[in-house]
């Protein structure tokens, strides 16, 4: 297990996330894909902290912050989703785009 | 110390006025009285400062730029920009001009019925921004004030204008924004070259010649946008015709001068080498303003279009003075800035008064107004005479100085354009007389009952402008001497 392995894994996960964002029409599905991408980024943080960092504690703390921010983002995003659902009775991305125009 | 605080107060007071006017009830007569009182205080203090500056120039003349009552505070430390204000002869005269126009502008909106509070509020912010422009000697501070003014213009025109106001406001603001972006680019360049924003320090540093070569035209044209030099003049007719009276007065009277002020104070002052290289070429643009402008005005029927093109041609004369690069021509340009400020203020004020009565600006639909509203008619005619350069009014003094000064520049193109400019004063006479005759003379078209008599505040506006025009026209010498003290350092930089 080297840093390269971890990074490759993270990037594969990230690409899967991209694929998910691009194909999913369900807003929650997109959110899940984004979660996967963020997760991949977190893996990068931890892996770099473990293999490379001069100060591993600080490196890991960064990912803790990132987790906290992700949690915030999730909370707000889901609140928006619920509000949107209440308004349009659908979470279809295509519908949302139509509503925009 | 008192003067120093007064100078700072000049731009703070309008803001305070806006703040304190918030609780006053809409449409209450106290609101406009309060605003008028504040503008009056600013006007009086600016006149006081002018007198102080004048006395100082008389007692200790100097070939250096004399900055009085300067305040220097740290402001944006990250880019070492300072809050640096002061006053010299040129800026003190511009301040008085601006203060008079703001004061009369508030009077001109005296009978505004809807949204007076917001209008006056923005108008005061506009006032603060121009005072700021004329007193700031730090490029960042200058730019902040310069930008503030364009924004207020947009809101005032789009909110309170007439006719195609949205289009006019957008055209004006966006064109000004082009100019501002050009100015900002060069300011950043200057900072990168020298590491200071201080105008006085910068004037002592010679910027690299290659930098001046590229930067000068950008900066000069950037400023020229707001003074409607040829390729950037198109905002002026649309903007003026859409703007409400007070804003037209302000735009033509003060804002268009700010560009010329910037050209003289910053572009030519800081980059003399660039000026020497580029200004002879820019004369071709100036030729358009001076020579073609009056002919276009001749062909228009809308009063505000006529006046807009007349402003364009008069501002062309300012630029002719700047481009001739002789001390006399510079002085003429500065005199023309002030003179044109007054005469165009009077023009737009009277046009507003006429429009509020006839509800049209088409001169072919008017006639004989002199019978019904002689006071306003006489005001318009005096403005017209000042515009066509009648001796005894300020326009003549400025134009004669520009012509004599620019003739001293021996470059062929400058000579040709000066000669053509002198000959084009006939065209100015044609459109002004045509306009006055169609509108004021002949039989009365609209019945006299529909035209209310001249109101006291309107009389006050007209009288105050006429007095300014006459004072400048009959006693130009002290003003000329005062301006010379500001212009000499700029000229010295040129021949350095």
């Amino acid at each position, binding site marked *: 297990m080297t840093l390269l392995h971890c990074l490759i894994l993270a990037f594969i996960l990230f690409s899967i996330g991209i694929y998910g964002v691009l194909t999913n029409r369900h807003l929650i599905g997109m959110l899940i894909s984004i979660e996967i991408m963020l997760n991949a980024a977190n893996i990068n943080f931890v892996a770099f902290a473990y293999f490379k960092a001069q100060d591993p504690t600080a490196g890991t703390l960064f990912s803790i912050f990132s987790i906290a921010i992700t949690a915030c983002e999730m909370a707000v995003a889901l609140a928006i989703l619920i509000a949107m659902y209440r308004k349009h009775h659908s979470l279809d991305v295509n519908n949302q785009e139509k509503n925009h125009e | 110390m008192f003067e120093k605080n007064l100078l700072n107060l000049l731009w703070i007071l309008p803001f305070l006025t806006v703040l304190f006017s918030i609780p006053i009830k809409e449409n209450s007569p106290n609101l406009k009285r309060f605003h008028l009182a504040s503008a009056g205080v600013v006007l009086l203090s600016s006149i006081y400062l002018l007198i102080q500056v004048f006395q100082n120039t008389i007692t200790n003349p100097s070939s250096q730029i004399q900055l009085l009552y300067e305040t220097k505070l740290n402001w944006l430390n990250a880019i070492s920009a300072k809050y640096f204000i002061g006053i010299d002869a040129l800026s003190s005269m511009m301040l008085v001009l601006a203060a008079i126009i703001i004061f009369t502008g508030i009077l001109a909106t005296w009978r505004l019925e809807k949204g007076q509070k917001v209008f006056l509020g923005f108008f005061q912010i506009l006032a603060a921004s121009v005072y700021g422009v004329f007193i700031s000697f730090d490029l960042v501070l200058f730019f902040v004030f310069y930008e503030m003014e364009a924004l207020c213009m947009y809101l005032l025109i789009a909110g309170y204008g007439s006719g195609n106001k949205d289009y006019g406001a957008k055209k004006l603001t966006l064109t000004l924004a082009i100019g501002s972006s050009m100015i900002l680019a060069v300011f950043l360049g200057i900072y990168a070259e020298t590491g200071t924003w201080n105008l006085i320090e910068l004037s002592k540093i010679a910027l690299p010649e290659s930098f001046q070569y590229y930067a000068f035209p950008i900066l000069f044209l950037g400023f020229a946008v707001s003074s409607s030099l040829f390729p950037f003049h198109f905002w002026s007719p649309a903007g003026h015709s859409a703007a409400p009276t007070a804003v037209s007065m302000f735009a033509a009277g003060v804002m268009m001068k700010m560009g010329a002020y910037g050209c003289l104070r910053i572009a030519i002052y800081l980059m003399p080498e660039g000026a020497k290289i580029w200004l002879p070429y820019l004369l071709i643009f100036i030729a358009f303003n001076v020579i073609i402008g009056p002919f276009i005005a001749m062909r228009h029927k809308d009063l505000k279009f006529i006046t807009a093109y007349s402003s364009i041609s008069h501002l062309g004369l300012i630029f002719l003075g700047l481009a001739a690069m002789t001390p006399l021509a510079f002085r003429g340009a500065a005199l023309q800035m002030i003179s044109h400020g007054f005469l165009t203020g009077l023009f737009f004020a009277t046009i507003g008064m006429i429009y509020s009565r006839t509800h049209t600006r088409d001169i072919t639909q008017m006639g004989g107004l002199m019978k019904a509203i002689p006071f306003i008619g006489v005001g318009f005619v005096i403005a017209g005479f000042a515009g066509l350069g009648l001796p005894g009014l300020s326009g*003549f003094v400025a134009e004669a100085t520009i012509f004599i000064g620019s003739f001293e520049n021996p470059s062929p193109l400058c*000579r040709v354009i000066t000669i053509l400019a002198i000959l084009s004063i006939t065209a100015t006479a044609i459109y002004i*007389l045509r306009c006055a005759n169609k509108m004021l003379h002949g039989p009365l078209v609209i019945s006299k009952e529909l035209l209310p008599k001249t109101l006291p505040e309107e009389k006050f506006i007209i009288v105050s402008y006429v007095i300014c025009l006459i004072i400048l026209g009959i006693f130009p010498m002290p003003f000329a001497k005062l301006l010379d003290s500001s212009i000499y350092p700029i000229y010295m930089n040129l021949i350095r």
Partner: protein
Amino acid sequence: MNNLISHSYLILLLPLLSFIINGLFLCFRHRKMAAILSTSLSFLGAVFATIISVNFFISGAKPILAFNYEFLPFTGTLVATIGCLLDSLSAMMILTVSLISFAVHIYSIGYMESDQASGRFFALLSLFVFSMLGLVIAPNIFQTFIFWELVGVSSYLLIGFWYDRPSAVSASKQAFILTRFADSFFLLGIILLSYITKSFVFSDINALRLENFAGQMISLGIIEIPTSDALIFSTLLIFIGGWGKSAMFPLHIWLPNAMEGPTPVSSIIHSATMVVAGVYLVARLFPLFAISGNVLEIVMIVGAFTMVFAAVIACTQKDIKRILAYSTLSQLGYMMLALGSARVADSSIHILGYSAATFHIFTHAFFKCMLFLIAGALIHQVHSNDLNAMGGLRKKMPWTYAASLIACLAIAGIPPFSGFYSKDEILISAYQAGHPIIFACALFTSFLTAFYMFRLFFLAFHGKMRSIPKHPVHESLLMTLPILLLTIPTLFSGFLFKGIFHNFSPEVPLSLAKNLPSATFIPPLAITFSVLGILLSFLFYASKKSNPAKALDSDNRNAFYKIIYHKFYFDEIYYAFVRQFILGGLASFARFFEEKIFGTLVTFATTLIQKMGVLVRKAHAGSLPFYIAIMIIGLLFWYFASNLPLQGA
């Protein structure tokens, strides 16, 4: 004496005061007060001017600079000042202007009695007199220009006094714009001249010598010419200013049209102010003109042509004021001719031309003013300008009749009236200077002058009444008195002042002409021509066989008469030129350029930006997949770009 001179600012101050007080306070409500105030101030001015000029001539006639207020300094020695220069020429002009303005003021009280706006009239009249006085006392050319413009603008306001009449408005506009057109050349001339000489002051300018500028060159933009040529050129430009103001052909058309103004205005414009300003300018700068090559010859030819041209037109007109207007043109032509004929050969000056011209300014002012006042009195009675409506007024207005006989004899050049002396000198000058053709023209014009003036005289006063006036015809005192007063100078100014004008001599740098041919045969010849004209006129219009109605008929005439009657169609040509060329051509082209060509470019630029905006806006619709796709494509680009050998490594 010195004490008086030091108060010479009063010359300007009195009319200015009258203008300010009338204009600001009395204009609308107190018409009577305005009339009294400005007339009394004008009286004071006339008295003061008389005292000053009499004192001046008695005390030896040396030029005095009475005061000089620094107006605006330019560079170095180039300083604009407002001052008062008293020399023979200006003293003479001050006297003429003040006296005539006083007469016109009195007359106006009667003439403008029924006009509601007479307060404004008196204010503007005072402004006019103020500007003219400022013009004549100017010690430098810059002040001349300042007051020159003020004269123009006050004449504009006075001609368009009845501003609700479209014809008056257009006439005033025409007068202002045409003179303004000429003035732009004048200003250019001043700037060129002051650039060369570095001074505005007349004494400096008149002391110039072309030799001082040998070898120097000056750039006029396109071409580079020797400075001495530029000096001559600037003299010509300055003369163009006088050309327009004095309404020389082809800039003459504003003057007859200016008759739309009230008659007192026409009277003062035509006699002492405004139109003689051009002649005065040439006389003032005479030394400069004298050294400037052929400029004086141009002056002479222009003057002579206008003289004949206007006299021919005057013979056919029916409008009494227009006849007088063309007669003014013709007389101005005389003056210009006299000035121009002063140059005998390349290096010598014949001083008689100069003194004759100034003399003619002086005498002409009185009798022309008188003639206009008489015309005004006639118009006031019959309420028409047309000679068709007059006739037979001899018995109704005996005093006016007598006065107009004197005036007509004066202008026709019959001794001992003043016109004879000055005109005689002009003829002598033209003859002695060796211009036979010009001399013949002048003689012929003198014949024509007698003819058309007596045509007017006979048609107006003799024969039967051709119309019945609404009100009974009578002579009002206020209007007759100034006419009678003016007969005094008309009668006596000729032989009394002849001597003084012979002493008029500008300090000319060129040598005076000698060995001039004898011209004793000229006075009898001139008188013969004038008498012939009068007789012919009598035959046509006042003898028993004549038929005035047929003589005035302009319709059943041959083509030649019609062309003359329509003033050679110059009005029409002028209007066509303005409409088609200036408004329709230049201005239309300018607007076309501005709106169609330049406007299209601006619109194109904005459309371009807007289109780009639409493009970018589509990308900002909020579609997440699109953003990601763009991100990855960007990455791809970056990848390939980073692999390209851009740095040449």
